[in-house]
Each structure stands twice: as structure tokens, then as C-alpha cells.
């Protein structure tokens, strides 16, 4: 019951932030010098009258606050306006593209967690030994290397040189296999989609891996010095069990927070990785929208990514409260 109350409380807290995101996005997209109408008419002969007509059609002739209210009213109904470049509803466009991005981001996180946690534990347990130094250097390289460059290097090695893995595109496992020529059966589709996902996943996940590993190591070191670990040792609990059970559980809590907060880096990184690997996700849609001055679409995507981040943070906060009994519900630090 308490947890439910906390969940509702967190969701209510998010409302001003969500409204704030919409205001900032709206202002950025509408105050700029980029004029969508002249963009639409690029290379065509046009009269003043035509410009006025188009402005009226998209409601660009009305004052800013009126347009914001209209936009928000539409937003609540799930209508994000019409993309000028694609001539299609923004919401529908985003629905098509959000899948690949989520697949990419989630698999990158899975990769990061699966590799970082064991590495962090090993490093903490063998503090100041060669394996610790090696993993710390790896983490340092990981936080210092741009994801898109990792992607480029991976393509150079595994796609161009060795020819083992494809360098671009993505097969969506949720589509029917018949959607892809030459693919029969779900198994083959899953295999192809894993093959395509592998390189972008590593490219996007490396930064997350390095960040999580650093935190994991510090937390484990701290946790291994805790009173409960000393007590367990005094009772003669085997070292392996202490590591796996006593120290490990406590050390995982901050990881949850890191995962939530890093979502914004991951979503930004997805833009770059999608560009490098030619994946038709939100990131590339965003870049297309920016380069064609499609302000409606830019607003939609920015808002959606902001909302996704807020949602991610709320989910991690709630799961933190669920896991850690010490969290006092509904109070700020």
C-alpha cells in the first residue's frame, strides 16, 4: 500500500517536469529563425499569398501561446500534429520508429549489466591486483571513447575486415518472418536480428558498461568492509558465500539509480549509433527532422525522449524503493 502511494506520489511529481519539457521544446522549436514555410516552398515559385495560406493551414499565423495551448490539447488526445516533411501524423511516424531504438537501448543495457557486474565484483575482490588494474583501465577507456567511434571501429574490424557481421540495418524480431525475403521461420529471423544487433549493442553499451563497472567496484569495496561482512566472516561463512550473498546484494542498490540516470546518455547515444549503423529508429528520424526543419516532428521526438527518460527514472526510483526497505516513502532526501 505504501509502495502504491509512493508510486502515485512520484508520478504526480513528474507532471511539472513533463509540462516543463513541453514548454522548453515548444519554445526552442518555434522561436528559432528556421522558417518551416519557406522550407516547404524551397525551389518553388511562391507568392506572399501562398505563404499566408500555408501559415493559416498549419496555424502558424496565430500567437505563440495560442499555438501552445492547441498543441497541448492535441497532445492530450495523442495528436502530435502533422510532419511537414513526411506529410504524415507525427505520432504514427514515431510509433514506427520507437521499436528499434528501444530494442537497441535495452539490449545495450543488458550487455552492460551482464559484463559490468561480474567485472566490478572481480575488481573489488582482487583489489590492486593485475585483474583489478586491467578492468579499471578498461573502464577508463570505456568512459573516454565516443560510442559512434566504437561503432566505426567495430564495423571496420568485424564487418569490413573479417566480414563476420553485417555493418548496417536491423531485423525486427517482432515482425512476421514473411516480411523479410529470404528468411523463413522465426528461428532464422531471431538469429539474423541478433547478428545485426550485436555490433550496435556493444557500441552503445560500452559507455554504460564502464560507468556501471566503476560504481560496482566502489560499492563492492565499500560493502566488503561493512560490519555485516565482518560478522559473517567471524561466524566462519565461506568467502564465496559472503561475496555472493552478503556483500553483493547491498552493492547493487546504487546500480539501479545509475541505470535510470544514464538513460539520457543512452538515448542520446542511440542517435549516433543509429546513424553509424543505419538503423531506422528515433535517432535517425530525429536527425532527418532536424535537417529538414520539420519542427513538428522535432518537438514530438524531443518530448517523447524526455518522457521516456522521466519514465525510466520513475521506474528505477520505484524499484529502488521496492528493493531497499530503508527508503522513506514520499520524502525528499
Amino acid at each position: 500500500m505504501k509502495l502504491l502511494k509512493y508510486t502515485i506520489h512520484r508520478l504526480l511529481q513528474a507532471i511539472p517536469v513533463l509540462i516543463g519539457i513541453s514548454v522548453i521544446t515548444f519554445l526552442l522549436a518555434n522561436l528559432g529563425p528556421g522558417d518551416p514555410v519557406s522550407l516547404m516552398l524551397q525551389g518553388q515559385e511562391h507568392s506572399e499569398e501562398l505563404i499566408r495560406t500555408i501559415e493559416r493551414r498549419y496555424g502558424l499565423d496565430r500567437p505563440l501561446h495560442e499555438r501552445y495551448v492547441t498543441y497541448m490539447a492535441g497532445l492530450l488526445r495523442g495528436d502530435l500534429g502533422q510532419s511537414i516533411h513526411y506529410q504524415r501524423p507525427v505520432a504514427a511516424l514515431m510509433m514506427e520508429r520507437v521499436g528499434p531504438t528501444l530494442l537497441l537501448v535495452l539490449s545495450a543495457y543488458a550487455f552492460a549489466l551482464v559484463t559490468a557486474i561480474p567485472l566490478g565484483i572481480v575488481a573489488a575482490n582482487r583489489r590492486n591486483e593485475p585483474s583489478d588494474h586491467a578492468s579499471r583501465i578498461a573502464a577508463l577507456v570505456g568512459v573516454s571513447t565516443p560510442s559512434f567511434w566504437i561503432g566505426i571501429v567495430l564495423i571496420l574490424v568485424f564487418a569490413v575486415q573479417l566480414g563476420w557481421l553485417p555493418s548496417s540495418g536491423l531485423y525486427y524480431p517482432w515482425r512476421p518472418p514473411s516480411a523479410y525475403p529470404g528468411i523463413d521461420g522465426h528461428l532464422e529471423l531471431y538469429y539474423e536480428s541478433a547478428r545485426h544487433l550485436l555490433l550496435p549493442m556493444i557500441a552503445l553499451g560500452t559507455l554504460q558498461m564502464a560507468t556501471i563497472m566503476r560504481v560496482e567496484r566502489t560499492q563492492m569495496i565499500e560493502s566488503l568492509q561493512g560490519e555485516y561482512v565482518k560478522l559473517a566472516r567471524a561466524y566462519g561463512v565461506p568467502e564465496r558465500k559472503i561475496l555472493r550473498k552478503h556483500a553483493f546484494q547491498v552493492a547493487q542498490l546504487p546500480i539501479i539509480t545509475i541505470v535510470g540516470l544514464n538513460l539520457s546518455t543512452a538515448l542520446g547515444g542511440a542517435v549516433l549509433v543509429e546513424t553509424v549503423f543505419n538503423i531506422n529508429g528515433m535517432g535517425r528520424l530525429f536527425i532527418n527532422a532536424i535537417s529538414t526543419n520539420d519542427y513538428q516532428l522535432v518537438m514530438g521526438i524531443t518530448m517523447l525522449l524526455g518522457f521516456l527518460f522521466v519514465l525510466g527514472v520513475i521506474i528505477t526510483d520505484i524499484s529502488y524503493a521496492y528493493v531497499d526497505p530503508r527508503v522513506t516513502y514520499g520524502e525528499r532526501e
Partner: protein
Amino acid sequence: MAVSESQYESGREPASEDEESVEARVGWRYTVARIKRDTTARWGLYIVTVVLFVAVYAVVDSNLSRLTFGVASDYTFAQLLPIFDHPTHIPPPGEGTQHMPPYFPLAEQSWNPLPAGGTIEHPLGTDHTGRDYFTRIVYGTQVSVFVGLVSTFIGLTGGTIIGAVAGYYGGRVDDILMRLVETVYAIPPLILIIVFTVFVGGANIWYAVLGVGIAFIPVFARIIRSRVLSIREMDYIEAARAAGVKDRNIIMRHVVPNSFAPVLVYATLQIGVTILIVAGLSFLGYGAQPPTPDWGQMLNISHGYMHSNVWLSIWPGIAIMITIMGFNLFGDGLQDALDPRIED
């Protein structure tokens, strides 16, 4: 942070210096001494120094415009770093490097390979227009370091003002400012920066710098605010207030300086993050515009020449990596050096 003095003293090497109290573990001289002893910090400092030197050298060099805009035949590597002898004959782009074996033997080399480098004229080869790659990498340092430092400074200044005001006044001011900060924080930085750069300014490095700075105000504001919240309750602030010191002076003279150590560490690490973001921004074409050499932008261009010279896609990445690594190492070392709880 209630750490008893005995904890500081435990495990101290008695041979090192005279008896050190806690006071002796803070302050500039002690920090510098710690940095000198700490391997991580020292290496960070070395790398940062070299990177800064290269960047400043590129500014001081009088041939800047010629070097940046010119093609390979206009200048040489030797002109850039005078420690090398000037070669008398400067070959036109390509000539003299053709015999060089490609480092990555491509399976089917259907295109003309771009000069792979390894010569004194073109140690790293040339790009698709024949410009010396090494020079461009060297000049790329300027943009990265400049952007890293300036936008971190913008973020730091903005964050300090907002965080200090929010933390010091509390109440409604705090609520409003922190909601604003949370809002900016919620939009992924890269997205926010691109939207800001393109819609407000048009793709231009100055707007990129400003955008990156603004995007990172929230992180600094949060740190400063939490420090200020704890400092606000200190006795000396109470005393200053009782003595009738103005709020603005209390913030500037007492609150901000005392909350600066963790922020300084964070700022150093943030420079690395900033350079990382700007590299991505330039890779997408929204950072420095050609012909200004910039690492991210060079990677964008070399992406199209992946089959003719792989190394063009490698060098700028290594440059980015080393630079960021330097700031990260230095930041990590600084953190240890400024933390009086950590033993040597």
C-alpha cells in the same frame, strides 16, 4: 561528514612527514603534493598538459589559416612542429607515399587507396582532399579543448548561480529553480543541444558551445545546491548573517568557495564528457563546420572513405580518446587528492 580524527591517523606512515593534523590534509600545497604522488593524477596531468600545449601551439602558430584551409602541398608536418627538419622537396599529394603498403590489407581494394602515411611529410597520410591528416588532428585539439573548457565554464557558472541561490534561499525559489533544472536535465543532452544549435542559432560552433554549456547547467546546479544546503546550517554563516552581511555577499564569499572542491573535481570530469558530446555533435554535422578541422567532423568525412583508407577513421578517434582520458584521469586523481579521508 563526521569522521573521527583517529580514522585519519590510522595507518599513516610515520616516516613521511611530521605529525599531520586534519588541517594539513587540505589546502593547495597538500593537494599539489598529493597529485604529484598519485600515479593516476600524474598521468592525467601529463596528458592534459600535452593536449593543452598542442592546442595553444596551434593558436600561437602564425600559419593558422593557411594550415587549416590549405592542402598538403602548402605546408608540412615539419613546419608545424619545428623540432623536425624541413624537407626541401614537398611532394604533391599522393606522390611518394604510393609505395607504402596499406596497414589494413583490404580483401578487395577496388578504389584508389588514399595515402596511408608513415612518411615524414604525412605521418598519418592525407585526407580525401590531400590535406595532411596529422596537421588536421593537431588543429582538431584546439576545437575540442576550447569547446570542452568554455562550455564547462558556462555550465559551471550557470550551475553555481542557480544552485547557490536555490540552496541558500530554499522554499519557493528552490522549488521553482529545481523544477526548471530537472526539466532541462530530463531532455537527453545531445538532443537538447542539437535542437538548440539548429533552431536557435543555425549549425555553428558558438551556438554549440553555448548549447552544451546550458545542457550541463543542471548537473552543476544540483551538486552546488546539495553542498549549499549543508553549508547553510554552519555556524559561520549564522555569524555572518548576525553581523548583517548581505545575502549576496554570504553566497559569494562564504557559501560558494566552501562548496567548490567537489565541484572542481566534477568540472574536470565534465570537460571529458563535454568533449565526448561535442565529438558526437560534430560527427552529426552540427558542431564545427568545415574547413575548421575537428575530430568528430573528420570521423564523419572519413566514414565515406572507409574502404580506401581505414586509418582515417582511426586517428581522430584515438585523439578524442586520449584527450578525454587525460581529463578523466586528472579528475579521478584530483578527487582522491582533495578527499581528506583517503590515505596516501
